[in-house]
């Protein structure tokens, strides 16, 4: 099985990082993974995006036109990637900044008030972690406990930051569970 | 004449091969080559010296110097020497470059090597003309000087003023030894040797980058005899290219 996801948002929203977290965890789980950034003018403002492929066999094309999943953190990203998702796929929408919903009936969607969650836990810049939690919780692309282990390793040196991020992650995971 | 009791007090240095140069009669490249070789001998560094030759009249310098030698691309000798010194700081590296090579096509490389304070030595031979290609205008050609590409004399309104490399490089803040000497008379040759000796010492002691600009004659392309050439250098070049230390590591605050 090959799973593909596009993470997209403004530059600076931590899009590249959460893509890498999924790729790292996928690798630790023994899957083949590729993380491919969009690089170029998009990196400065506008939309930044990256594609992550997690697969049980060697990965062919690292370029994915039509992913199963999209995680979008701002409106331009929603407009750009919502139409590209494969039927039967999933879009995770940052409802704090995106005031529309997908009108597609062939995909699943999940709204996450990511910025509110992050602000509530005192880390306004960690909205991406809320999105990550919700996405992993709903898609099952990687195991949530493996993701938690990775986050622990990543932020382990700063106890307070780790604790807040874990809370944000849990809340994201909770949204995925509760809406099912 | 009976010679047995006599000893040789002046002869070809070991760091110079026993080859006849291809230079024109009176060309002072030969003198400068010999001085560099004498300095290498006196400092005892022949077996760890790597020279880098230019493109220009002295392109074949590797046939005359009895040390390891690289032949560089036009103007790039300072980049070659940077490569050598960065990966083998224990070696002694010098570049030997003419005015077309160093002050025209290689301007970028020399400025940046000097500015990084690369610990090598540059012997910069300024004879105010392109020699090898047959006497075209150089960046150091004097105002009014006739060359094959400024047949009516260098017009500085069109081509700018001659570049004073020693002054230009000494404007950099990085510590360096930058000096200008000449080889048009015996007294000046003696001074030139002192300057080159000093430049190599700074390298051996890992003090700084060093450049010795040597004013030199080109009787063939200047269209003068050797004697007239020396006079022309003295009267025309030296007033514009004043001799002396432009910068020393001991006094390099600017």
């Amino acid at each position, binding site marked *: 099985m090959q799973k593909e996801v596009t993470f997209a948002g403004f530059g600076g929203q931590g899009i590249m990082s959460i893509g*890498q977290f999924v*790729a*790292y965890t996928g*690798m630790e789980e023994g899957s*083949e*993974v*590729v*993380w*491919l*950034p969009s*690089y*170029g003018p998009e990196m400065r403002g506008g939309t930044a995006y990256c594609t992550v492929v997690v697969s049980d066999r060697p*990965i*062919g*094309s*690292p*370029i994915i*036109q039509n992913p199963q999943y999209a995680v979008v953190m701002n409106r331009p990203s929603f407009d750009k990637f919502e139409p590209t998702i494969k039927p039967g796929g999933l879009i995770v929408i940052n409802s704090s900044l995106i005031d529309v919903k997908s009108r597609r009936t062939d995909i699943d969607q999940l709204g996450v008030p990511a910025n509110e969650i992050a602000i509530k836990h005192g880390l306004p810049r960690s909205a991406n972690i809320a999105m990550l939690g919700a996405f992993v919780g709903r898609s099952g692309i990687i195991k949530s406990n493996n993701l938690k282990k990775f986050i622990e390793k990543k932020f382990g040196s700063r106890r307070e930051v780790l604790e807040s991020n874990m809370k944000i992650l849990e809340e994201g995971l909770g949204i995925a569970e509760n809406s099912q | 004449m009976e010679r047995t009791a006599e000893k040789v007090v002046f002869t070809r240095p070991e760091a110079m091969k026993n080859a006849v140069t291809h230079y024109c009669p009176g060309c002072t490249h030969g003198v400068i080559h010999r001085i560099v070789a004498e300095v290498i001998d006196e400092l005892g560094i*022949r*077996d*760890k*010296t*790597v020279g*880098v030759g230019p493109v220009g009249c002295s*392109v074949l310098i*590797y*046939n005359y*110097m*009895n*040390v*390891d*030698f*690289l*032949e*560089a*691309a036009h103007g*790039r000798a*300072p*980049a*070659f*020497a*940077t*490569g*050598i010194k*960065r*990966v*083998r700081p224990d*070696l002694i*590296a010098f570049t030997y470059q003419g005015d077309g090579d160093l002050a025209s096509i290689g301007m*970028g*490389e020399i*400025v*940046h090597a000097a500015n990084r304070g690369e610990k090598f030595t540059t012997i910069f031979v300024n004879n105010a003309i392109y020699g090898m290609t047959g006497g075209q205008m150089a960046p150091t050609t004097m105002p009014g000087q006739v060359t094959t590409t400024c047949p009516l004399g260098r017009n500085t309104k069109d081509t700018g003023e001659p570049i004073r490399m020693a002054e230009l490089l000494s404007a950099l803040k990085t510590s360096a030894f930058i000096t200008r000497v000449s080889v048009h008379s015996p007294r000046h040759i003696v001074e030139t040797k002192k300057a080159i000796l000093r430049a190599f010492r700074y390298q051996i002691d890992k003090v700084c980058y060093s450049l010795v600009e040597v004013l030199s004659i080109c009787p063939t392309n200047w269209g003068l005899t050797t004697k007239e050439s020396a006079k022309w250098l003295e009267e025309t070049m030296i007033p514009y290219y004043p001799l002396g230390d432009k910068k020393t590591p001991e006094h390099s605050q600017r």
Partner: protein
Amino acid sequence: MAKKLMKGNEAIGEAAIQAGVRNYFCYPITPQSEVAEYLAKRMPEVGGMFLQGESELAVGNMIFGAAATGERVFTTSSSPGISLMQEAISYIAGAQLPAVFANIVRGGPGLGGILPAQSDYFQSVKGGGHGDYKMLVLAPSTVQEAVDLMMIAFDLADKYTNPVMIIGDGMIGQMMEPVEFKKPPPMALPPKKWAANGCKGRDPVIIRSLFLDPLRLEQNNRELFVKYRRMQAEEVRFERYNVEKGNKVLIVAYGTTARICKTVIADFKARGINVGLLRPISLYPFPMAAVAEAAEGVKAVLSVEMSMGQMVEDVERSVLGRAPVGFFGRVGGVVPTPEEITVEIEKLL
């Protein structure tokens, strides 16, 4: 050693470190600046030498100077920067020095763009600089392969006293994949008697590419080509993917493009249509015999590239009329999609 998730550019830098190389000169250019950034940190950690030069022109020539001492040395750049290094590459080839260049290719001509391309095939394989010379050109298609090729590149450069180029499109530099650093078995290499590192106990050496006597220069050229023929005999590298009897179409593609073609081949397989892929890993020497063999009995051959049609000329030279040779390419940073390639293949069926 456990697998690490690394960006291609950083993995290329680390591969050189793991291969024991301690000398790197660079000039920043997108999309490969991460190699420089990575090694600016990493080289001092291992006691190595890192220098950012003033231009690619200078860096190429620093590589010459450093290589001439017999030390292992490399640089990385992207297309416009590699163009500026052509002077030095020609001189290094002419003077027969070992050096490794990695080119993370971007679109051109001119300043072009910063997105992936394969439009430097001619530049790297057919010359680029002046004079008759060849480089060993190796094209990885994954980050792991970029690492593996980097780790043998220095031995190959020493083996042939010749520049070796690793050529990857922008994606190879930018994407992250798991990598492992496995030291390849060392090659038996001749002593570097040619190195200019001080003439202690021997006669001075001269390293040059200047031979004013035409017969002597011709002899130098002939010597170079004896070496290149040896490369053709010993260094051809390629991958056969689904190449078998009954292939309807043979695709020839390298680098990331080849991976995209693999996706296409899997889709065709699911539909019961057999398409093969011959992926050149060494672009020079080009795997001519392997392409010819794989083209035997197919209806058509398709060269897929991120260029306006460069490698296709070598494909035609290899296929020699055994089958019609078609071409499909996207340029300017546009990456061909599996869907587009599928349409092209369907036209040939």
